[in-house]
């Protein structure tokens, strides 16, 4: 709607309007992103009112998460090399004032947007972000309502204006255009996007940054459909791939958060313990945003229940590909109450079944029924975890054979559209089957691994021809199998 408007700080709103008025594209409110004005205000305000909880709450109420945003590049949890790479690109691009292009890709929550914002702040570069506006229907000449402007036209106008014209207010020569929210029309017709890029290349005088998060779902992967290698070549686009945040990075980021908490927020939040941070680090799978969010949730003061357990519970979903380290996963098994079994805990229970003899009959200490209750809302990821981890726990090939057969049944039941109806069968078969098949579990310590090879990798458009050649593109099944095996074969142990 109003994304063509620039920052309007020159009039003072008389009513309590948010300082981060959303439609203004200048300041995105990503929870991990940085808006220094507000937090410096926050900081000052909270220092002056440390004795007064009520006041201080009011100061920070707008967006709690922002209090923990990184201030300088050193605070970023992203790998230092990547930060440097982005920094160098930005420096070079700003000097030449050319329409350089940068593409940032990476998993969800690895700090792509934050990195750009933090570095831009450091070099005093003004970031203008495109936000897909509302479609407004305007009456046309014959009285009918219709969309006047094409999305792509609006988009082009916006990015070129943002790149070429300096705001009256800050007189800042260095500008940067940021696109994260791609208009839908480009997803439907990528060729339109190429045209827009062409125009931009010719007319604009500022660098532009595109940010795409990678997801493993079918279709809608913007980085693949929009930024094909030929597009990248044509526009000499610099491509920086971010990885998930490392354990150490996460840990230091959370340490920073806990320092902030202990300095300013002790009235509302418990200071997180080292254990708690460790748990969050382990279960957030390289996702800083969810890690901070979960820490927020976990150290909330006022709930009397033990924090660790419930914290694990709420993060199961994020552990799609967690990188477990030794001490951590064994610690996990000792945490958690019966009602709140984490996914790792659940995996441990299933793979190390304990049998007790009661009145002459054998019984499992943890009934499969109770285990599956916990995972009804994410059956597939749990079964994937079991599949990844079951083998080292078996001592004989016979039993492993049985386990493989129940898992295959479970997979079959959970496949495709049946999932909704058959999820309980599938889960039960997998869980009970594994527990019963494993007569003498290996007692050695086995770390729980995330199911990294289970993810289906859909081929990119440019890979199609290569696969077709060998007659490999015969439906989804073959192609997924083929690619998955290639991945397994090519998998090196040191690659995370």
């Amino acid at each position, binding site marked *: 709607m109003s994304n063509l408007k620039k920052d309007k700080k020159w009039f003072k709103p008389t009513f309590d*309007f*948010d300082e981060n008025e*959303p*439609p203004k594209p200048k300041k*995105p*409110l990503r929870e991990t992103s940085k808006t220094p004005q507000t937090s410096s205000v926050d900081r000052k305000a909270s220092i002056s009112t440390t004795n007064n909880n009520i006041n201080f*709450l*009011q100061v920070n*109420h707008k967006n*709690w*998460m922002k209090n923990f945003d990184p201030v300088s590049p050193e605070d970023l949890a992203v790998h230092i090399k990547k930060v440097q790479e982005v920094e160098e690109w930005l420096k070079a691009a700003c000097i030449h004032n050319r329409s350089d292009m940068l593409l940032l890709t990476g*998993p*969800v*929550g690895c700090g792509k947007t934050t990195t750009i914002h933090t570095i831009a702040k450091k070099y005093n570069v003004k970031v203008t972000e495109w*936000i*897909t506006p*509302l*479609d407004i229907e305007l009456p046309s000449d014959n009285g009918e309502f219709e969309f006047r402007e094409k999305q792509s036209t609006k988009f082009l106008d916006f990015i070129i204006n943002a790149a070429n014209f300096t705001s009256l207010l800050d007189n800042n020569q260095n500008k940067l255009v940021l696109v994260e*929210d791609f208009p839908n029309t480009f997803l439907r017709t990528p060729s339109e996007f190429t045209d827009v890029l062409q125009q931009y290349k010719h007319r604009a005088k500022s660098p532009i940054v595109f940010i795409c*998060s990678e*997801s*493993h*779902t079918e279709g*809608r992967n913007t980085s693949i459909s929009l930024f094909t290698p030929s597009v990248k070549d044509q526009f000499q686009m610099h491509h920086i791939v971010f990885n998930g945040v490392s354990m150490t990075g996460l840990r230091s980021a959370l340490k920073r958060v806990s320092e902030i908490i202990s300095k300013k927020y002790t009235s509302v939040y418990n200071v997180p313990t080292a254990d708690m941070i460790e748990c969050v680090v382990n279960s957030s799978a390289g996702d800083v*945003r969810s890690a901070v*969010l979960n820490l*927020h*949730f976990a150290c*909330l*003061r*006022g*709930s*009397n229940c033990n924090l660790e357990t*419930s914290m694990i*519970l709420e*993060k*199961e*979903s*994020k552990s*799609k590909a967690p990188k477990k380290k030794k001490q951590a996963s064994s610690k996990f098994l000792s945490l958690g109450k019966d009602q709140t079994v984490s996914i790792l805990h659940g995996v441990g229970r299933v793979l190390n079944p304990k049998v007790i003899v009661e009145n002459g*009959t054998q*019984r499992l200490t943890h009934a*499969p*029924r109770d285990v599956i*209750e916990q995972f*009804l*809302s*994410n*059956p*597939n990821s749990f079964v994937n975890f079991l599949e990844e981890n079951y083998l080292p726990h078996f001592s004989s090939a016979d039993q492993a054979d049985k386990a493989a057969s129940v898992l295959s*049944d479970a997979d079959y*039941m959970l496949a495709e559209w049946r999932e909704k*109806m*058959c999820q309980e*069968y*599938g889960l*039960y078969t997998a869980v*009970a*089957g594994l527990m*019963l098949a494993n007569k003498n579990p290996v007692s050695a310590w086995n770390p729980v691994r995330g199911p990294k090879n289970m993810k289906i990798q859909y081929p990119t458009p440019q890979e199609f021809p290569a696969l077709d050649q060998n007659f490999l593109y015969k439906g989804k099944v073959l192609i997924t199998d083929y690619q998955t095996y290639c991945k397994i074969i090519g998998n090196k142990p040191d690659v995370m």
Partner: protein
Amino acid sequence: MSDDDVTIMEVDEAVPKPTKSTAKPAKSTAHLPWIEKYRPQVFTDIVGNEDTVSRLAVFARTGNAPNIIIAGPPGVGKTTTILCLARALLGASFKDAVLELNASNDRGIDVVRNKIKMFAQQKVTLPAGRHKIVILDEADSMTEGAQQALRRTMELYSSTTRFALAANNSEKIIEPIQSRCAVLRYSRLTDAQILAKVIEVCEKEQLSYTEEGVSAVVFTAQGDLRAALNNLQATAQGFGHVSPEHVFRVCDEPHPMLVRSMLDACVKQDIHAAYKIIAKLCKLGYATEDIVSNIFRVCKTLDAPEDTRLALIREIGLTHMRVADGLSSPLQLAGLLARMCRAAAARDTHW
């Protein structure tokens, strides 16, 4: 604009507690389904998942709630929790500051882009630490495109608007959204929790009931409190008395005792006895799918060794899949019986 979206859930709730049904004019609640009449209005009334609920209650007091996703099976109180949270946070401005959309509303890309954004941009005067709330019920049925369109909106308006999503399957929610929300998991309610609630409702409605009748309601509900209350109301309206026969008549399910004896026969490898029961059920006109899912429910609580149960459930699951694929002939049921008998026989050698 949010008004008509909200009122569906919010029927005439001037009095915060539904427990005071007598205090309200009889007219207002007499024609309500019990699931609405007894929908909890405050956190303390919510059955089950106490840990998570108590944590949310803290947010309700202090504000600054994060975006949340509540995932869990149907009928465990996901929507109720979110509504309670919204009510506790917003109080009187509930009607203005809540936008509720569920699967029955159109939630394509356009709605997410226009309606939700428009709502997020609206100015509503709220106390500090309180935010407008967008409730997306059954979020797992949203298309991926719509979810993608949502993710940036979520951040852009995070200073004014919070999102609360409810979903049965959290895997259906795209990762970028999961990353922006605290995911809370609800587990199924235990039979004891449902039993207590059902009895409470019976007493409030001054209903005559037998203990078996109430447990029959609990059995038909399978951890789904909403189903329990619906079945209870249906029984009460139809017969005025809750006894097992009435409950199974109203819910029109194969009687679990019959099914149980059928399963026992299978475990004893007596296929004739088992088939007689199945033939009877088929003759009564039950659909194959209903019979199979009923067998599964009974089987879960069957008093048999775990390995027998596993073998049976595996066969039932495979049969259910065939039935779902469209093969719902009685032959499938006969085949199921035969395979169950064989599984029971083979379990000593197989496992």
